[in-house]
């Protein structure tokens, strides 16, 4: 067997395992984080510190029956959960975990990730629409308008980044940030608003993944469970795993673009451990945010995007363009 085939298979298995393990154990981390923020213990019965809980939950989900209610669109209803999971896994292909640990170092990696990320909203739309359920349809409509509103400032910020880095290749972007003063979040020579750009990017990736406080799509107090109301068993499981995989993707991108990816802050021991450390710190922040803030109202969500994030990111774009021209 030629080595290229072995490489493809190894990365395929590795990426799927990484995505699935992350989805499982981020649920555990989320429950533990939520519990301790509320001064409870959280899962503790199954295994030490409840560490086997995700396995048991997974088995439970897999052994349940997939119910297909009357009146649903049979094809789209089955397709939607797959569409939620597959793009997330595809996006892992181009994420550079370390200098060499990247499945495919694509020249347009950044573009590819955003192309796949926009499929995610299609999954929510199809899932909601095919369910033949009023809550699911309302939720799908919300998810689409939310994603459109937040895609704009996110992409403007990414354009700013691409103007500075001059490449769409994620590994090259990381290579440009060898130590902490050169991380793009602190690269004030490119634009004095870099930390703001990072914040905008982070807020938008929260909103894109439908995380609290932007989880209007599944606002359980008004919409039961939103677009996955009618899904049971692994149909629901795939939506759920897709959400966590998307969080990992969003945080990985933030790490790559702004926090120096696999680079050491002091330029000493770069490697995959630095990437994972930064990644999980960001993911913890995501969880922390979820359990701190209540869900926003819908117009508050859109106001934040159209009145604050888009003007500020536009301004940052112009400022960066000016800086690049002058210096």
């Amino acid at each position, binding site marked *: 067997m030629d080595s290229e085939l072995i490489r493809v298979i190894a990365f395929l298995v590795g990426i799927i395992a990484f995505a699935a393990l992350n989805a499982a154990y981020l649920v555990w981390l989320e429950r533990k984080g939520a519990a301790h*923020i509320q*001064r409870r213990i959280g899962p503790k019965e199954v295994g030490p510190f409840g560490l086997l809980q995700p396995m048991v939950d997974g088995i439970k989900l897999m052994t349940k029956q997939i119910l297909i209610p009357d009146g649903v669109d049979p094809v789209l209803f089955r397709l939607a959960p797959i569409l939620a999971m597959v793009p997330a896994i595809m996006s892992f292909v181009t994420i550079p975990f370390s200098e060499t640990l990247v499945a495919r170092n694509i020249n347009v990696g950044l573009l590819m990730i955003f192309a796949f990320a926009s499929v995610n909203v299609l999954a929510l739309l199809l899932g909601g629409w095919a369910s033949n359920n009023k809550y699911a349809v309302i939720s799908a409509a919300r998810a689409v308008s939310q994603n459109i509103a937040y895609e704009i400032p996110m992409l403007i910020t990414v354009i700013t980044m691409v103007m500075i880095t001059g490449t769409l290749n994620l590994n090259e972007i990381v290579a440009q940030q060898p130590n902490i003063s050169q991380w793009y979040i602190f690269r004030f020579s490119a634009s004095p608003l870099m930390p703001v750009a990072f914040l905008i990017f982070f807020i938008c990736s929260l909103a894109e993944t439908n995380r609290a406080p932007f989880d209007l799509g599944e606002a359980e107090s008004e919409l039961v469970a939103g677009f996955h109301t009618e899904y049971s068993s692994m149909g629901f499981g795939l939506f759920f795993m897709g959400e966590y995989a998307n969080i990992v993707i969003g945080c990985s991108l933030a790490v790559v673009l702004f926090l120096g990816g696999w680079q050491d802050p002091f330029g000493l021991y770069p490697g995959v451990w630095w990437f994972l450390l930064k990644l999980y710190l960001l993911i913890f922040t995501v969880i*922390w945010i979820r359990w701190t803030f209540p869900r926003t109202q819908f117009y508050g969500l859109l106001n934040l995007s159209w009145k604050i994030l888009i003007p500020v990111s536009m301004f940052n774009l112009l400022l960066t363009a000016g800086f690049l021209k002058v210096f």
Partner: protein
Amino acid sequence: MGAYFKEIFTGFWSLLVGMSITIREMTKPVVTEQYPYEASVMTSRFRGHIELVPNEEGGNKCIVCGMCMRSCPSACITVEGEKREGIKGKALTRYRLDFTRCSLCGMCVESCRPGAIRFSKDYNLAGTKKAAYIFDLLKRLEEQNK
């Protein structure tokens, strides 16, 4: 324009304050009680179903006067007794409490002159049949003495 930026900054600041509160709460000790492994002590005024008060020998203080039976507004209580040698009055042979109808009003406890009954601290009741809540308090007392 100034108000616009002020709103952004105060808003953002309040978000940071919120996050600092939750992270501090996270480091504080857990306050929940791990129920089946540890249970809190019931307060002195807690009212479980009634039980017989044991005397020094572990027996009961009931003189089978029937006051509790008559005072109960829901007719939950049935007491039966018999004459025994060497005992003044009657000796209790059966104390039946139908807890399904009890409203925990306390009339029985108040009307008992010898102080033979009191509220228990039992809150772990569960059952699938009505019969599970019809207690023989005399048997219960004997089992407790074992």
